[in-house]
């Protein structure tokens, strides 16, 4: 499918829904994608099955603090600079690109890259949501190395990372981005279609576009929108949408700990002032608690919607007095294996309990 302007706008909106509070405001990535498809021919969104088994894929996206890009603007040519540097350094010729994560602005960077490099973008991603670290991608979990990788800073300078473990890479790329203004564009995970097929969360780009279309056309409150979204999720590998809570934000306390935005939000129910829930945050929304009863936890998806407009609210925009509706969604099966839960389960975020799927917690 040739991606048109409207697809890209809907993708940006749907990607906010799947971002579970993180991933950053996709507006700037949207602008880059719009400029890129204006400047070049638009990108083609393709199924992984339409490529040969040994075709070469890379994942492309931003690493760093999305909030800083509100001031340190991204450049439309950054993804292309990264891809060309990657090809020069490795001698590989890239056949298609894929997204790190469908949540937030990183859903759109591959389109910027694909249009500029004249290659297609694959319908799918490495998370099915947003998560903060490189080892949490299904690509890493499947044993594919993120390096060799190229990182490009705001001035267009590129550097190479090579032959290091996933965890070392996570640490070094984080340091590099902080040293270069807080955000960089990277090309990582050179892989064949054969490798990617084993781990891709498929069809999430078209899912996000479909979600965005519903958010655009079915204006109304959160409950109304959730009814309209249910059939969109029905045929996917995600679980069903479950309304966990509806109420007002009474406190948001977050601070930066160990390089992350860590804290919690407290909410009071609309219909019962005694009923309170707590949402734990580490960039993304991680858990929802009613007293000491857990309602949902990472890696299942937790999305907060503005009750009145149904629009998703990112964690950095959550504030006192907002009326929000909390929705839980079972994550794709990729994250429910023991190997995946070892890197994305609650314990990886400092909690002392094991993962229980949402469907066992609330039904």
């Amino acid at each position, binding site marked *: 499918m040739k991606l048109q302007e409207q697809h890209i706008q809907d993708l940006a909106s749907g990607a906010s829904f799947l971002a579970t509070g*993180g991933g950053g405001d996709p*507006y*700037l990535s949207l*602008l*880059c994608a*719009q*400029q*890129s498809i204006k*400047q070049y021919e638009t990108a083609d969104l393709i199924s992984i099955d339409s490529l040969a088994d040994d075709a070469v894929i890379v994942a492309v996206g931003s690493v*760093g*603090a*999305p*909030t*800083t890009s*509100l*001031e*340190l*603007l*991204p*450049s*439309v*040519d*950054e993804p292309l600079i990264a891809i060309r540097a990657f090809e020069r350094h490795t001698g590989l010729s890239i056949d298609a690109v894929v997204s790190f994560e469908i949540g937030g602005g990183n859903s759109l960077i591959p389109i910027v890259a694909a249009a500029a490099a004249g290659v297609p973008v694959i319908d799918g991603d490495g998370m099915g949501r947003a998560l*903060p670290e490189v080892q949490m991608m299904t690509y890493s979990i499947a044993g594919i190395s993120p390096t060799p990788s190229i990182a490009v800073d*705001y*001035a*267009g300078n590129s550097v190479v990372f090579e032959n290091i473990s996933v965890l070392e890479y996570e640490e070094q790329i*984080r340091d590099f*981005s*902080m040293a270069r*203004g*807080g955000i960089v564009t990277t090309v990582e995970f050179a892989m064949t279609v054969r490798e990617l097929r084993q781990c891709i969360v498929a069809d999430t780009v078209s899912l996000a576009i479909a979600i965005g279309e519903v958010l655009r056309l079915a*204006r*109304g*409150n959160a409950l109304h929108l959730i009814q309209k979204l249910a059939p969109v999720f029905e045929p996917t590998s995600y679980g069903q949408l479950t309304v966990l809570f*509806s109420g*007002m934000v009474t406190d948001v306390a*977050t*601070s*930066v700990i*160990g*390089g*992350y*935005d860590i*804290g919690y939000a407290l909410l009071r129910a*609309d*219909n019962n002032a005694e009923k309170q829930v707590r949402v734990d945050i580490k*960039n993304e929304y991680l858990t929802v608690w009613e007293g000491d009863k857990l309602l949902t936890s990472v890696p299942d998806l937790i999305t907060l919607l*503005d*009750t*009145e*407009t149904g*629009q998703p*609210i990112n964690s*950095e*925009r959550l*504030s006192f*007095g*907002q*009326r929000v509706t909390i929705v839980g969604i079972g994550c794709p099966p990729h994250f429910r294996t023991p190997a995946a839960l070892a890197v994305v389960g609650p314990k990886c975020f400092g909690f002392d309990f094991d993962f229980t799927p949402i469907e066992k917690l609330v039904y």
Partner: protein
Amino acid sequence: MRIGIDVGGTHTDAVLLSGDSVVETCKVLTSADVMSGIVEALTRLQEKSALANSAKSIMIGTTQFTNAVIERRSLQPVAAIRLGSPSGRGLPPFVGWPEDIAEAIGGTVFELDGGYLYNGSELAPLNTAQLDTAINQLGRLNIEAVAITSAFAPMNAAPELHVNERIRQVLPQCRTTMSHEIGRVGLLERENAAILNASLLHFADYVINGIENALASVRLSCPVFISQNDGTLMDVSFARRFPALTFASGPTNSLRGAAKLTGLNDAIVIDIGGTTTDIGVLRGGFPRESNLVVEVGGVRTNFRMPDILAIGLGGGSRVNNNGLSVGPTSVGHELVSQALVFGGAVLTASDIAVAAGQASMGDRSRVRELNSDVVSNCLDTMGKMLASSIQKMNPGKTALPVVLVGGGAAIAPNTLDAGFEIVRPEHCDVANAIGAAIAQVGGEAERFISYNEIVRETAIEQVRSDATMKAVAAGADPDSVRVNDIEEVAIPYMDSGATRVRVKVIGEVAALNSYPTSAAVR
């Protein structure tokens, strides 16, 4: 004693308030030049009550600047200077703007080296030769308004100040808007706000000179304030420099006026005009603000604005299909000649209200022959339109009281299906002018601060002090200033305790307490 004036598209309303109580009100048609309408309204007020002459301050709400942007008129060409290269390649100033307004404003852009990074180090050093070339070109192009925007200016405005100073030296006739003076964090939205503001500077002089002349001609010499989008006020010298801060002040004033007239702090407010109905929500006595980025005339900004749902229903809405369809087309300000009750030939929502005995205007005998089914169908249609919109805006499950205000309030039915209680306060037709009259003065400041370097309490105190200075500069009594909102946002992934701190303060108008003869505080 104070006077509130609302200059709307159709009517100019004026109210005289003594403390909190309404002394007199009047409503006249808005004139094409705006100013003679104000003169007429004030003259009427003076005729009704001699107390009007002893007013200590006048507050004016106007949609002139919003309308100028929406209609793309009275805008002057602006050059946008951005200091942020080499970042943002391919996303120049005016990116994402509708083409017609980008053309109206000129689209001259300069992307220069400069600005800062999140950690306080330079993004790129200012390049003097580059800057001088740009300023020369401004002179050659005869551009008289410039918007200056620098990366991380809310944290460090030095590059903007430097460029502003150079322009002042070389091109003294040029007027400038620096982004850090008008917007918050978010470079593109702040730059857009600065560009829109700069494009209105010339028109602001015209409008404010007109207001001052109008007041002089009716011999009122008290200080004048202009309503801002957050329900607070600015003095006229500030408004000359920041006309864009009046965007969306109309809906804000009607919400605040409704709060004052009813004493309700939490309510849904329906402002029915001639062509449209604006539905907003009062929370704690103030308008609920939109969580989303707000577009003005299609341009994305980050102004503080009330969350408003507008529908095409008003006193002038055309009634079609035997009353089963009403609006969105309207006879607008031609209501007084085209509606049936005024001797015209168009069946409007106002005619239905008169026929149903809800309103008295024009000649009722002209609608006596109207089919009663059409009347009841139409009331039903309008009730359904309002009820479904109210349900969209109603926060939570409890039905809030619904306050009807605005010149077209009479067209609304007396009951709504959804079980909302309807309140029609006295003076509801001039709620906007009352909202303008009771407004306060606000100030907002924002900075990126590292809590590792500055203790949190000290940091917030610094930002509060910035905000207070802004409020006092906009005309607030320093002793009455209080904190209205504190927002802290930690920056994800950063190890330095970096936090975005934003403080909003609000205070009483200094002139109400101390009655100074001049409010020229800047």
